[in-house]
């Protein structure tokens, strides 16, 4: 009787242990996703990206700032700004390809994982040289 009870109890404890390990992993993924949502709303308004004119801050991303920007310590995710309208060449942006390119990579720390989640938000892209405002998406890929 006591042996059977001990075995059942052991199996249950092992089940709980395995379940908790998975739950902790899920909670960690949830936290990372929440951090990505927070970045999604804050990054376009951060001084690293935002266009400002004589200290007047505009709700636009300065594309010239994007060319030299490399963010750090944001965990396993990639962050890029992709121009969607008008359509341009499907190229990564650099000093050589600007402004005839569509993707500005501003952070990349990739994890070899199948579990990834992509979220995006529309942003205004300002081109100071031509004083044009175009449309893009800020895309954050979170690796679980």
């Amino acid at each position, binding site marked *: 009787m006591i042996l059977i009870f001990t075995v059942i109890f052991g199996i249950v404890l092992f089940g709980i242990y395995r379940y908790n390990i998975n739950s902790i992993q899920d909670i960690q993924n949830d936290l990372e996703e929440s951090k990505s949502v927070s970045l999604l709303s804050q990054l376009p308004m951060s001084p690293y990206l935002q266009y400002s004119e004589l200290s007047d801050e505009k709700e636009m991303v300065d594309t010239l700032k994007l060319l030299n920007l490399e963010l750090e310590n944001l965990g396993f995710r990639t962050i890029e700004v992709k121009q969607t309208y008008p359509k341009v060449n499907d190229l990564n942006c650099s000093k050589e390809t600007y402004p005839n390119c569509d993707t500005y990579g501003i952070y990349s720390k990739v994890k070899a994982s199948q579990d990834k989640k992509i979220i995006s938000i*529309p942003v205004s892209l300002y081109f100071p040289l031509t004083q044009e405002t175009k449309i893009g998406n800020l895309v954050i890929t979170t690796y679980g």
Partner: protein
Amino acid sequence: MGKGQLESLGLVLIVLLLAVLLVFSLPFLLKDDNQKEDNILRLKADALRNVLLQASLCPGVAIKEEILNCEFDNPRCLDNCDQLESKIGEMIKTTLEPNLIYEFRVDGKSIIQIGNDSCLNTFSSASQPLSDSSKVFLILCEK
């Protein structure tokens, strides 16, 4: 083993079982995945409304200005104001994911309505006044 001891053991087993059930059910009770998706859609609706209004249609003229110009049937970038709806529609389509349904609406002298929110669970951006008489709305929902 006496009867009293067996009853105690039974009680302990029941308490253990309840504790195990509680541990397993807590994540399901606390989890609210839809809330996160809803917040992103709300954020997206507000951002898209701002982005559209700020976008340049031609040098020195943003969509916002052209909507106001069209209130007086005096477009500066387009041949006629009928083209404005298709331009805005094109901008939205290239920017939004294909699984999202949208409705962009300007209420005022010149009423503009692009897309159709044909789903129940919609997320509206805050309305943005353009002039005394016109306001812009953007509504999003998932297919």
